């Protein structure tokens, strides 16, 4: 019965605005010409191009792009020096060690800032937007924060892991994440030993990563799961199973009994129906609709259909994503403009769709932080709440102002950002509307700019407001006027939707 919920969109219904919708949701938007090319391909090919992105060549992510030695632990020799200095209370040596540590930390904080810029740039430039979008999804899902782990290279490794499994197999990724040094450190599993169990990873694994809070497990299951995960730690930059600290006893977890280790624990979890449902619900909010309030019957049916698909594919994500992006429901009116853009989505989509200059990557990173989404610094292990929580009166101003910055390069006085004098040539947005004499009719140009940017037909009032402004500024829709229209359009409350 749930198959119906995923029934595909008729080919002929896949029009230009549907292609814009797909580009926005399965990625970070595209230019008018990219949207037209996608629409011309037809639904199946368009979805294939976005989901089966392996055919698109992309700049490889090199493992040694960032320095792994900054925060490397002390050698045995250094440790011995510390021990001796402590024993003899050698303040000079101790102070030198402290200085060295401070220097490393400050160097590493510079590297995490570089990493942020690198990722934002990659999201802007990649020919595989879904790969980066799912990487972002998993970063928010298996949220791990730099502030706690203080090791930028481990954050980089985790980022590569998410990219590798972006549209791969969720179960395999889950087995990898309990071996991920950043995660192990973030949730204290390096402290989890059979003699002194630490429940942090076991709890969040069930509550936030797989099942959802209170869904099918008890506090006792958490305690048993924590024992299963004992000894899962890391050395330097790689996973290390410390058999001495691992509890080998028989454990009862959610009605199953066995000598579970971390993987056994995870297998028990992944076999539960709740897991696919929980993941389907999260992906629904990320890709389809981040509704507020009670779930409708239709939404529920669609999520259950997604969960069935995920179970049927044994947690392979591609078949699920393909079905969602091909479904009539995904394109239905109720799901257009139904997601509040995350700060990353807002910023990256603005650059990708309008083709504004990138300007300063550090400014974009700091802006996304002010808007509430500092990548590699999620607020907590729950990740970003998304939806309406992105928006308050002050983040709304910042959202509008970031667009002013991208469009004009104008240094907003109170921001510590660099002004940029790179001009933005916005005329390509209306190229297809040019008349034989090269001019663009103002009314149709403005109508098009609103429709493209809002991914919907604009409200008559909005159209009237912008049109009145544009007419008061002359007859021609030249670059300056296009940018002025864009400044107003991107300051519309509904521009925050995609």
């Amino acid at each position: 019965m749930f198959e119906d919920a995923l029934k595909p969109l008729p080919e002929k219904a896949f029009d230009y605005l549907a292609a814009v919708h797909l580009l926005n949701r399965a990625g970070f938007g595209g230019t008018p010409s990219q949207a037209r090319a996608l629409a011309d391909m037809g639904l199946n090919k368009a979805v294939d191009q976005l989901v089966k992105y392996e055919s698109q060549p992309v700049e490889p992510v090199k493992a040694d792009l960032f320095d792994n030695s900054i925060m490397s632990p002390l050698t045995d020799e250094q440790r011995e020096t510390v021990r001796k200095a402590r024993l003899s209370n050698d303040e000079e040596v101790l102070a030198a060690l402290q200085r060295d540590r401070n220097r490393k930390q400050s160097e590493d904080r510079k590297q995490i800032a570089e990493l942020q810029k690198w990722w934002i740039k990659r999201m802007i430039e990649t020919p595989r937007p879904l790969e980066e979008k799912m990487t972002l999804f998993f970063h928010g899902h298996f949220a791990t924060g730099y502030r706690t782990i203080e090791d930028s290279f481990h954050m980089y490794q985790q980022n590569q892991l998410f990219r590798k499994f972006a549209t791969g197999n969720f179960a395999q990724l889950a087995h990898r994440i309990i071996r991920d040094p950043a995660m192990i450190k973030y949730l204290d599993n390096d402290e989890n030993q059979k003699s002194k169990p630490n429940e942090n990873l076991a709890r969040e694994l069930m509550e936030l990563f797989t099942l959802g809070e209170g869904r099918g497990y008890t506090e006792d299951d958490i305690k048993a799961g924590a024992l299963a995960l004992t000894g899962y730690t890391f050395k330097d930059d790689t996973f290390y199973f410390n058999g001495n600290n691992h509890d080998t006893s028989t454990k009862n977890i959610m009605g199953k009994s066995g000598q579970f280790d971390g993987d056994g624990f995870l297998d028990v979890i992944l076999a539960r129906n709740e897991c696919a449902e929980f993941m389907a619900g999260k992906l629904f909010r990320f890709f389809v609709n981040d509704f507020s309030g009670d779930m409708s019957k239709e939404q529920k049916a669609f999520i259950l259909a997604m969960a069935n698909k995920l179970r049927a594919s044994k947690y392979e994500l591609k078949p699920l994503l393909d079905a969602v992006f091909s479904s009539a429901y995904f394109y239905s009116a109720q799901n257009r403009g139904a997601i509040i853009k995350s700060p990353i989505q807002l910023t990256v989509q603005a650059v990708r769709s309008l083709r504004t200059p990138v300007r300063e990557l550090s400014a974009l990173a700091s802006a996304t932080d002010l808007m509430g989404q500092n990548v590699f610094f999620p607020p907590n292990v729950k990740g970003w709440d998304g939806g309406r929580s992105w928006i308050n009166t002050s983040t709304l101003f910042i959202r509008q102002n970031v667009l002013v910055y991208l469009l004009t390069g104008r240094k907003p006085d109170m921001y510590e950002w660099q002004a940029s004098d790179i001009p933005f040539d916005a005329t390509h947005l209306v190229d297809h509307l040019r008349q034989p004499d090269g001019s663009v009719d103002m009314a149709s140009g403005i109508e098009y700019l609103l429709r493209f940017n809002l991914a919907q037909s604009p409200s008559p009032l909005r159209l009237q407001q912008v049109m009145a402004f544009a007419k008061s500024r002359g007859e021609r829709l030249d670059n300056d006027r296009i940018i002025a229209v864009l400044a107003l359009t991107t300051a519309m409350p509904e521009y925050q939707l995609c």
Partner: protein
Amino acid sequence: MSEHNIPYSRRLFMRHGVALASMATTIPQFIQNSALGMVAQLAGNPGGAGLPQDRILVVVQLGGGNDGLNTVIPFGMNEYYNARPTIGIPAPSGTAKGQTGVALMLDQQRGLGLNPSLKGLKSLYDDGKLAVLQGVGYPNPNRSHFTSMDIWQTANTGAKGNGWIGRYFDNTCNGTPIQEGSISIGRTAPLALNGQVQKPISFESAELFRWLGKDLHKSLDDPYQQINRAGILPETTQTSQAAFLMRTALDAQLGSDRIRAAVGKSPLTTWPNSDIANQLRIVSALIRDGMPTRVYYVSQGGYDTHGGQLGSHGRALQQVGDALAAFQKELAAQHAEDRVVTMVFSEFGRRVKQNASGGTDHGTAAPMFVIGSKVKAGVHGDHPSLTDLDQGDLKFKQDFRGVYANILDEWLKAPSAKILGGTFSKSSIIKA
């Protein structure tokens, strides 16, 4: 808004220029309400029915689960030192270990002290402006940060529904939101301030509280204002994300000018430099400006001390203690002390026993602080037993909703039973 205010507001409305008046002609109910709210502020008469004219509540949230046992030190209990061999804070008469120091004396007879980093709070205690409420928690404690924080913020043990402060406004303003009724300083507005009708204003820095696009060309300002003050467009579904954004856009315009002006002024006293101090300094500036705001919300993180906690916990406590002391001095200089009560809470305390990493794991009950010249200073209630535990955790002595009830009834003069959906036993903390 109380009814007798409305005619006066309308008179003002007529006098206060074209912008406001023209808004009222064609637009939906919501915006008219907002415009009236704004006019009430201009009249300097924000109080509505049930709102004492100028009483203010400041909520300080300590995020991450503050270790109550290392905040208020039960140095009279041996079990404390047994449970915390390396991170226990020595009694005031004891010997300092390393750089941490010994507890500051709070109550010799009860054997209670304050963390040595809480000198600021200790000065408030000595001035008779600090109430320490012991063992505050709730039944069937939840050890998830998020759920427990939601429980505290909704005052609902199912962690469901609107925020308790939002409901306070909803219950006292006759279905009309009070513009700038509540302000949170920070990235995101806490659930606590979210009501059905009442929505908080929040910002991290006042300078960013406007659209910079109008600097591009002055002709952009008018259409921008029209777009952002239009409220919910007729074809938009009221419950949609779009409607929510349109409402928020209007709120943003209304709050912008005034707040930026208020925060731009220099404080009357000197302030320490920390994030929490900066937040409280902004609050003090807004209070001085006579904002109609009844509730301010600030927060500090860093209390999730699972490992090596002595240093980091002490630093966090010092920042908040010093900031609270500075805030109280600033209020005194403004002659505003008698109008402000400050409440400090965290989502839970931590396990009695320290863990193997020199830290503590998620626990249950913990002390709360209530500060002000109008609070009954001193230690309230008994310390939870360190032997009669629930799975290694403290049993709470005072339901936090009883504390909220007391503040609602006695300070904000609002019907707590209606707002909290029940009655809770409470010890009186507000002076008559």
